[in-house]
């Protein structure tokens, strides 16, 4: 009997504190777009001028952070995404906006990016900006990136970066976090869920 009472006490105590923590998190997340992982609105530079996430309200947006000198990781992810969109019926594919954000503005100009992304699909958008502006968006989406000099390589430096495709719903809310190496058919299934919603 005594142990049952003690158990109830602990269940209530733990639930109470869990509730407090969740409430804190909830209030914080509502209050700001800058909570890590929350995603949210941003404005970055395309060759055609500034582009905001809210420009694509009504579409499902797929965002990938990388850099043009990336020989392997980024192209694999961009092809996976492109293929996932291609597997949709054309009228649905038109409702998906793929976005590539370069974390290497030193080497990747908006103009070069606009040509680069067209290698994947006609409506792919390439964005970049100053480092402080990229940093702000990276924090919102929990992207880790870092410029690492490679003294022994003709690369000069590489950009270590998180390889994730972020799927944002028609209202601009970040919904899916697609890890590296996810095959096109799985990305396609996630896109369909968001297009249906």
């Amino acid at each position, binding site marked *: 009997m005594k142990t049952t009472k003690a158990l109830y006490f602990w269940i209530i105590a733990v639930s109470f504190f869990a509730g407090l923590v969740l409430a804190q998190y909830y209030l914080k997340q509502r209050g700001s777009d800058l909570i890590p*992982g929350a995603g949210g609105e941003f404005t970055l530079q395309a060759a055609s001028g500034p582009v905001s996430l809210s420009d694509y309200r009504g579409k499902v947006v797929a965002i990938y952070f990388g850099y*043009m000198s990336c020989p392997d990781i980024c192209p694999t992810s961009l092809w996976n995404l492109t293929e996932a969109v291609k597997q949709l019926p054309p009228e649905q594919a038109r409702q998906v906006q793929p976005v590539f954000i370069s974390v290497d503005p030193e080497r990747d100009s908006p103009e*070069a990016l606009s040509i680069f992304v067209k290698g994947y699909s006609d409506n792919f958008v390439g964005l970049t900006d100053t480092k402080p502006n990229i940093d702000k968006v990276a924090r919102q989406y929990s992207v880790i990136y870092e410029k690492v000099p490679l003294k022994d390589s003709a*690369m000069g430096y590489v950009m270590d970066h*998180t390889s994730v495709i972020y799927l944002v719903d028609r209202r601009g809310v970040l919904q899916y976090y*697609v890890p590296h190496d996810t095959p096109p058919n799985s990305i396609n299934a996630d896109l369909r869920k968001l297009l249906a919603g």
Partner: protein
Amino acid sequence: MKYLALIWLLLSQAVLADAAQNVVIDKPFARAAMQQQKNSAAFMQIINQGQPAAIVNARSSVSEIVELHTHINDNGVMRMRKIPQIDLPHGQMVKLKPGGLHVMFIKLKRDLNVGDMIDVTLVFDDGSEKALELPVHKVMMKHKGMSGHGKKMMHH
């Protein structure tokens, strides 16, 4: 006596053969690159049937520089690094594949279009060389059933 001579011949062949002769390359390909893309990579499966060896260098006419690289997946952060050599232990298959070891083309002199054939020469630690012709492919992940779905974000 005849057999002994034959065995001696075979043994001496195995010992005398250089790395380039002992190494079998399977499924080599390069990744398509165009539209301002300055770098790309080549991948292959390698089986070394001889003494332990290593690839220490590579050349190609498609880029100004060719290096040996690998990727480290550090909790989802991809860190690409140059490596001095790719070890080829006896009898093991070494896979150069997307997301891992690769022959890296830096400063491409031309586009690598799907269907092109390009040249790569591997240089081994004993100085021997192996010239390869590889096709250019568009690289994406293979269908893996239901694995690897996107993670749903938690919204409160």
